[in-house]
């Protein structure tokens, strides 16, 4: 059967058969890098199109409908425009940091992709501390935003960067607690182990109400961490004219824009893995027949389906809720999300120890 696992294994075996170990590793690294970049480009195109369509339908509009059937080539045309644009740089910026910042954001997004299990046995790096690695690396991306805000030499950019810093640092806590609650239930940080522990049902169904609370907190926290509306304080077009990327244009701006969508994909992928079983098909307890039928749907489809559903939910948030003020934002975190997630984690730990989950 054709699956991602078989393809990658077949490729590895074929390469190993015709050359020695070092070139095989080098070629595979190149292939992985190419695949990651292709995935990024494709995701950028698809997610921007999806966002515009979702926004349009929610606001009773049609959305892009001119370039190609249903406007599907709209984002490709936009990208072409951004590539052709002059890479304008204001005069009094810190040139080195100004040029570096978009790449920091982008590279961080690429690094987080590494432990993501896209399908059964198809993963770039099966790292032992998967979830923790993701949490750790995602804290670097705030540096890119801070760097961009500072280097632009613009007070709006600086304000946007500071807001984004305060926001990401505080929301990392509740996102971390939500992740920890699933880690407490599975007893492993490895993303594959977490998926395998959901063989007889996803955690969202097995873990009673506390897991639901953890899931809601996770969704709110990651929406804030990816700087998306209603938490887009860092950009806030209406008050900061674009925040940390005010002074960016052309392809550099496009990199920030792309990184935002990649980050959404990644956090939704992590959310799908933790709460909805990643590539694990929909299984119910020990109903062998039902589970077997579900297994016929390829694992990659399960993963991408769940991830895109969560992405849709985040887009749904964006086009429903108005933007929070910065003090409301910090109140929400420190007065509501953090205490609730602390107690929730305690509750889940009790459930995990007593084995009360299904």
């Amino acid at each position, binding site marked *: 059967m054709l699956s991602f696992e078989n393809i990658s294994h077949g490729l590895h075996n074929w390469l190993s058969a015709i050359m020695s170990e070092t070139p095989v590793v080098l070629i595979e690294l190149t292939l992985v890098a190419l695949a990651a970049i292709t995935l990024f480009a494709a995701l950028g195109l698809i997610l921007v199109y999806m966002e515009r369509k979702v926004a349009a339908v929610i606001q009773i509009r049609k959305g892009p409908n001119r370039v190609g059937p249903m406007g599907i080539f709209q984002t490709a045309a936009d990208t072409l425009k951004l590539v052709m644009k002059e890479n304008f740089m204001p005069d009094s910026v810190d040139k080195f*940091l100004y040029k570096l910042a978009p790449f920091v954001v982008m590279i961080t997004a690429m690094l987080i992709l590494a432990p993501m299990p896209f399908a059964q046995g198809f993963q770039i790096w099966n790292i032992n501390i998967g979830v923790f690695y993701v949490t750790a690396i995602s804290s670097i991306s705030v540096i890119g935003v801070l760097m961009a805000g500072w280097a632009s030499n613009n007070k709006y950019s600086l304000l946007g960067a500071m807001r984004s810093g305060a926001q990401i640092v505080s929301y990392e806590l509740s996102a971390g607690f939500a992740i920890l609650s699933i880690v407490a239930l599975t007893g492993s*940080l490895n993303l594959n182990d977490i998926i395998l522990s959901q063989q007889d049902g996803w955690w969202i169904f097995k873990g009673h109400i506390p897991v639901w609370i953890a899931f809601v907190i996770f969704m709110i926290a990651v929406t804030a961490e990816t700087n998306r509306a209603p938490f887009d304080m860092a950009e806030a077009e209406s008050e900061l004219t674009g925040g940390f990327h005010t002074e960016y244009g052309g392809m550099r701006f496009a990199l920030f824009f792309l990184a935002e969508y990649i980050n959404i994909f990644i956090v939704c992928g992590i959310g799908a893995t933790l709460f909805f079983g990643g590539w694990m098909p929909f299984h119910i307890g020990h109903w062998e027949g039902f589970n077997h039928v579900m297994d016929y749907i390829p694992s990659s489809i399960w993963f991408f389906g769940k991830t895109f559903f969560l992405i849709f939910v985040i887009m749904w948030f964006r086009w429903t809720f108005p933007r929070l003020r910065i003090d409301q934002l910090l109140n929400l975190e420190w007065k509501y999300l953090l205490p609730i997630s602390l107690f929730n984690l305690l509750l889940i730990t009790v459930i995990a120890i007593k084995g009360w989950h299904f």
Partner: protein
Amino acid sequence: MEIREIIFYIIAAFVLGSGIMAVSTRKIFRSAIWLLSTLIGIAALYFWMDLEFIAAVQIVVYVGGIVVLIIFSIFLTHKSGDEMPKIAIKRKLPAAFAVLFAFAFTANLLLHNSFALSATKSFDLSVDRIGTLMLTTGDGGYILPFEAVSMLLLAAMVGCIVIAMKIKKEEQ
């Protein structure tokens, strides 16, 4: 030379180079960014040694915590965008001496001790084992410091929440 060694030297050069840049640049924010890349380089060294947990902790604590804090204090400082003044020669000399002394001291230590390579992997650093060690009361257990630190952090977090809640009461 093996590829493994080449990678080690690349990482080491990166760490040293950005360390030198961190102390020699005259823009305070760039200095913080160079410090950041030094710390990331050290995390890369841990990854190179297969100590993934330590590497991730290094990134969480230093990159996500301390450097962000430093950058924030730079942002809030008045006129932090200006170039710092050139350092006078009489302040450079003692610094150079200190560096030379430290270098000589380390080199001395390195040359007078032989580092035997053990064939077996000397440490098993799976997360399970770290967790078990953290909560062991017996030999090699770290229960006391672990609990002390966790109480401290919990107290800090509860303190934050209490402060956040208190302001709201006054508003009403």
